[in-house]
């Protein structure tokens, strides 16, 4: 038992080592600990924001303070977040650099070690790299900006492209949606604003990389992506943080707007260190014939609560959530999907696979809503859970509302474990038990992993291998 625990710890270390390094803090701007009205004014001042944004922040703070923690349905672990012990804004200035040469050396080294500039050269159409509160680097290939594609930080978006930005900002996820969307609205900084003009199909993915470097820090990025009529875009985000002794908070809000016939794919590989509370609100609004896909993989963090949603507002709109979650010792992956059908002939699909290892706990929470007087709506939901050890835990809590007889919904969930026969079979052929287990788990998620771009799926398989090593004994 003790040797097993030791191996698990060793593996956890190795996994975290991907992002487990930090540099001394050299922040020019620091809002200090705790959250008050002054914190908001400080952030607004540093970012030189228009008055409407400052007002927006203050309203949000009121909402945040008035809302209770959602512990009537969510885990009590949320109560361990001490909002007074968090630093809400740390930056070196709000203007990102357009060239890696201008980025401070330790920030450059950070992203170099994480492989961001290399990937940018290899296959990305644009990159934003966020370091604590603000983006250190943001660039998009010239050919794309010539076509009118905007890929900037959120602060630049609201100042320089207000006419496109403001009509949709906070419309998909209103401030009062939940306690953490209100928190984000009050102290947001960083994140991306993307606008794809009509008909433009961005062939290569755009990427954002979120990095927490400082202890006791809360990252609150805000992203708004608007894909105009008939356009297509794929956006990927990655994230890491060093492993600190204290809890760190990451609470993002991501809003997607797909206009008529547009397609947005949003890909996340979440590998926060296991001290991060990751409480994220993500939702997309799909107009006529539009398609929004959330492809989501959660491997890291202490507690993740994330239920990407799609509001299908136009006829024949389509929403999809593909989700992989892996919960190891001390982790709770509380993920799911929200599908709100608001027009005729809209279709949605949710496929969720989770793996619980050691004392890990994974949860699927879903909502499907088909209101009155619609017809031809379809939903398919599948959630499969794999339990590896006897202390592993998994839960499923879907809620499906259907009104009327013109629709088809189906929900199916199953829980299983890797069969002894399967492991025996592979061991007979010379694999160690751990290798066999790893292979079985990779097989379990294989069809979903292939939904990720090549570069990510290779990385994903490696991360899963690392997590699985030493988990059998």
């Amino acid at each position: 038992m003790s040797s097993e625990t030791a191996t698990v710890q060793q593996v956890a270390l190795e996994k975290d080592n991907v992002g487990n390094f930090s540099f001394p803090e050299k922040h020019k701007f620091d809002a200090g600990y705790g959250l008050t009205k002054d914190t908001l004014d400080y952030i607004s001042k540093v970012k030189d924001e228009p008055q409407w944004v400052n007002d927006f922040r203050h309203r949000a703070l009121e909402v945040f303070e008035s809302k209770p923690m959602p512990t009537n349905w969510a885990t009590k672990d949320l109560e361990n977040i001490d909002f007074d012990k968090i630093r809400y804004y740390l930056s070196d200035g709000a203007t990102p650099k357009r060239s890696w040469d201008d980025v401070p050396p330790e920030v450059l080294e950070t992203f170099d070690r994480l492989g961001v500039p290399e990937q940018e050269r290899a296959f990305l159409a644009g990159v934003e790299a966020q370091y604590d509160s603000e983006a250190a680097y943001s660039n998009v290939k010239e050919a794309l900006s010539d076509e009118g594609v905007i890929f900037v930080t959120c602060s630049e978006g609201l100042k320089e492209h207000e006419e496109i930005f403001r009509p949709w900002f906070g419309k998909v996820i209103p401030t009062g949606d939940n306690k953490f969307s209100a928190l984000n609205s009050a102290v947001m900084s960083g994140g991306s604003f993307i606008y794809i003009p009509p008909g433009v199909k961005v062939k290569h993915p755009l990427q954002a990389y979120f990095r927490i470097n400082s202890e006791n820090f809360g990252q609150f990025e805000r992203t708004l992506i608007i894909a105009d009529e008939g356009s297509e875009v794929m956006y990927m985000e990655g994230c890491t943080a060093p492993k600190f002794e204290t809890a760190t908070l990451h609470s993002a809000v991501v809003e997607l707007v797909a206009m008529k016939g547009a397609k947005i794919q949003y890909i996340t590989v979440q590998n926060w260190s296991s001290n991060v509370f990751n409480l994220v609100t993500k939702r997309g609004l799909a107009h006529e014939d539009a398609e929004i896909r959330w492809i989501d993989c959660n491997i890291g963090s202490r507690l993740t609560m994330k239920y990407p949603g799609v509001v299908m507002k136009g006829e024949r709109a389509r929403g999809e959530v593909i989700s992989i979650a892996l919960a190891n010792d001390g982790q709770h992956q509380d993920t799911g999907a929200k599908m709100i059908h608001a027009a005729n002939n809209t279709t949605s699909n949710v496929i969720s696979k989770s793996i619980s290892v050691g004392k890990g706990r994974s949860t699927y929470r879903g909502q499907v809503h088909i209101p009155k007087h619609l017809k031809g709506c379809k939903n398919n939901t599948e959630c499969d859970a794999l339990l590896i050890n006897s202390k592993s835990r998994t839960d499923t809590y879907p809620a499906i509302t259907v009104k009327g007889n013109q629709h088809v919904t189906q929900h199916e969930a199953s829980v299983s474990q890797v069969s002894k026969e399967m492991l025996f079979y592979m061991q007979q052929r010379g694999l160690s038990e751990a290798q066999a287990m790893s292979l079985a788990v990779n097989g379990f998620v294989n069809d979903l992993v292939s939904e990720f771009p090549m570069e990510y799926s290779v990385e994903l398989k490696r991360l899963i291998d690392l997590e699985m090593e030493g988990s059998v004994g």
Partner: protein
Amino acid sequence: MSATLTSPALEQYEALDWPVRTEENWRFGAWKEANLSGLELVGVGASGKLPAPLKGFTRIVFENGTLVSGSHDSVELTKESFGPVSRLGSVKLAALHTAKSDHGLHIKSATDLSIEVIHFVSGDGLLLPGIVIEAQEGANIRVVKRFISVDNSATTVLAATDVRIAENAHATCLVTQELNAQSKFIRFADSTLEASSSAKLAVIHTGAKWVREETYATVDSMDARSEILSVALPTTGQEYDQRTFQHHGARNTYSELLFKNTLFGKAKTIFSGLIFVDEGAHGTDAYQTCRNLMMTDECEANSMPGLEINADDVKCSHGSTSARVSDEEIFYLMARGIPSKDARSLVAQGFSVEAIEKLEDEQLEALALEVVARKFANVE
């Protein structure tokens, strides 16, 4: 005797709060309907037309709280509640039953037994029947309970059932709820199973304007098997809210749940089910299926099938679907000369039969089908 049990119970009932909107156990539910404050117990009941007797069954008839005919050595009439426990959100309602119920039955047998209980329900007010079914070692007990309105008044029936099955025993319990469209029906149905025992608990809902049913199956002994079955046929003005909990607490246990809802008119249903597997309950086999057949464009079905698994080496699954009768099936039947309305009814009845067949008891199946057919004859 009743004074010692009832007084603290009454205090407890009065100290508790009625359900509120924010409780997870009342999500989508009509929590306001559960507020029964100010409701007095119903008075003396009236008689109704007795249905054809079931062969081999001992018939016991109640008119409201009064036993008017039938007796059996293994059946004892009780004067107070057995004290139901609500673990699914209606603590106050359970306390109300404990505090105020003044009649019930206790069936206890070590040999095979078949009992039919008819409840004729009438008058405005509250009726609080209770029943304990104890199948002792090796016994096979069948119980049918029918709730039938005999007038048009708004009666609120708050019923409680406790099924306790000893080693190697088996119990089948079929409840039919045939109240009028003004009445409310609330029921707690608990069951506990000892080693190698099995239970089939079935319910058919055709009446009442509002139903709230909390079924809690405890399967915490080796090789125990529990089946929960339900057929519900609500139409305009009817809302059925059914919550279930399949609690597995020991190795090698089995449970299966099958709910079939056919929704007519502006009916609304809520199904919330949870399979809960304790740490160490390895080898659990648990299934849960809720299927909604939507007959109109105005009905509404809410499903919340849940799982909480704390053991490995388990096989658990749940499924929930909502759909209408497929056009192909209607076409097939019409091509054989059956009018479309009859075809739809035929397909829908066939849909209910899938749950009824699981009773695996010809007499009970025939009764269930008869109740279902009567409802079909009265809708559309």
